[in-house]
């Protein structure tokens, strides 16, 4: 019995030693840092206020609207290093809900120390996770951003009303999602930072990321609420995703 214990002890010690990072390996020894991301939601330049009066906002077509829900996912964040390398941040999924102020300030962690000139991320959720079964955390379907009848995540959800909408109670329902061709609405956002972002252990630099709800309704196709006021996947969601691919996000500020 004593022998067995000794053997076990030896085995455990062996495992512990081999699991330690090798100081000669620069990748494993590298320190990481964090950046705080402040999300600011707007509607074509005006701060977004949910449930405000109908006359406050107009879409690009000039249609009045009121917004009651605005939620979106961003995922698979990569930072672009000074030398052009794309540094992928593992397991980076973020859900922003305009109705929940705690989601407006988030952090991207585990970024290798260094200087970064830009960012790229998926607007929505990558197709792997879309089809990978029950998820948890921000990807928990209980967050109300998952379709049960056509399984997969809703990437961007905007609801509200417009007197021009022909739907019941003049509702606007824009649930954009779908990860399969030809109705794939996964779009990638890439932007160069207005100034270099410095990541280092123990510091907390900041990014200001502005999300413009109005981008859903302009760009490639100017949306007329009389004609398009409801979409839950399918070709109309592709129209909206094509619209917001470039205009939905903008990094407006980098504070080191």
């Amino acid at each position, binding site marked *: 019995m004593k022998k067995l214990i000794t053997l076990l002890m030896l085995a455990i010690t062996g495992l512990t030693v081999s699991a330690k990072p090798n100081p000669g390996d620069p990748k494993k020894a590298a320190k990481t840092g964090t950046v705080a991301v402040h999300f600011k939601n707007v509607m074509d330049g005006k701060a977004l206020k949910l449930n405000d009066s109908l006359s406050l906002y107009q879409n690009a077509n000039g249609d009045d609207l009121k917004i009651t829900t605005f939620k979106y996912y961003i995922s698979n964040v990569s930072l672009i290093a000074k030398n052009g390398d794309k540094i992928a941040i593992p397991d980076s999924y973020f859900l922003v809900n305009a109705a929940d102020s705690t989601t407006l300030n988030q952090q991207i962690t585990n970024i290798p120390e260094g200087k970064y000139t830009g960012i790229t991320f998926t607007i929505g959720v990558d197709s792997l996770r879309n089809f990978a079964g*029950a998820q948890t955390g921000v990807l928990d379907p209980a967050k109300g951003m998952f379709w049960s009848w056509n*399984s997969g995540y809703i990437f961007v959800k905007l609801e509200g009303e417009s007197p021009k909408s022909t739907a019941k109670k003049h509702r606007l329902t824009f649930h954009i999602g779908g990860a399969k061709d030809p109705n794939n609405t996964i779009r990638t956002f890439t932007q160069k930072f207005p100034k270099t972002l410095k990541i280092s252990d123990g510091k907390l630099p900041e990014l200001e990321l502005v999300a413009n709800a109005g981008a859903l309704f302009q760009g490639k196709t100017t949306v007329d609420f009389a004609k398009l006021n409801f979409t839950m996947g399918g070709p109309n969601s592709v129209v909206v995703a094509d619209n917001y691919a470039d205009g939905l996000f903008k990094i407006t500020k980098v504070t080191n």
Partner: protein
Amino acid sequence: MKAKGIVFLVLLGFITVCTAFNYGFKGINYGITADSVRFAVPANFPKPVYDFKDNPVTSNGFKLGRILFYDPIISKDKSISCANCHQSFAAFANLDHAVSHGVDECLGTRNAPPLFNLAWQKEFMWDGGVHHIEVSPMNAMTNPCEMATDLNTIVSRLQETKAYPTLFKAAFGTTEINSQRTFRALAQFTSMLVSANSKYDKYIRQEKGGDLTEEETAGYALFKQKCSTCHQEPLFTDLSYRSNGLDLKPDDIGRDSITHQETDRGKFRVPSLRNIELTSPYMHDGRFETLKEVLAHYNSGVKPTANLDPILHQNNVYGIKLSIIQQNQLIAFLKTLTDRDFVNDKRFQAPE
């Protein structure tokens, strides 16, 4: 030391086996042991689609899934459980119900599909809209005409029910209850619903009880000639979506509702023929009561619908012509696909 260790291990094993399937105080355990709850691929089956890596079936996970499957607490008014539309004696379809029947006497639009061999399915539902076994119950849970509830409500109800935190702890290590664990427990139960012990299976595996009669043999030959393109062995479906000429103008656009493709209008998933004897009524809307009616449809009822499957329109003939004798032979063969062991398996029935 050695002897003590062995006694301890034996005791531990004994306790595990005894508690694995002991529901409440009645102590009925159906003779089920932890060992009997393990997913196994039948010899005549391919590799499953479901990757059990993140959710291996355990006796406690399966037990929780089984309890959830039979618990109406997950519907809006606590009146409807999964088992309401998926009855064990009907191979987990809904006997005598053309379409599913939800809360507030709401009638849905489609026939509840039987639940078995789900671990081999890449997509779920008549239109294939659900892509993963784990999230497939969410459809029924949130559909306003079925359980009409939402995941947050379900999770908080489970948290507030005395037995569940303990059951979740046994299954997943801690008392935490969330949607992922709920879905995974249900998947441990539903993935275990394997039907592979019919007379046909015994015939294929050359086991005792697998001798086909002359009529069944003739039916099998006909099946291979006339039906097997769509109803591929051993699952008896190729899992594709096809139109079998039911309506010139379909009320239900079927697969089109998922893909938004005109070419998918009126197409539905090819159902498995396993246990077909037990799963009436038939078709996505449960329009046919008997297998005779189904074969009569293929013989003379196929309509030239927009996306009619080309197999049902060859040499200017619509459908599959079969004499009455042939129809009877085919039905005799289809009945060899009935798996009594499966429908009578105590592990899958309502916990006491």
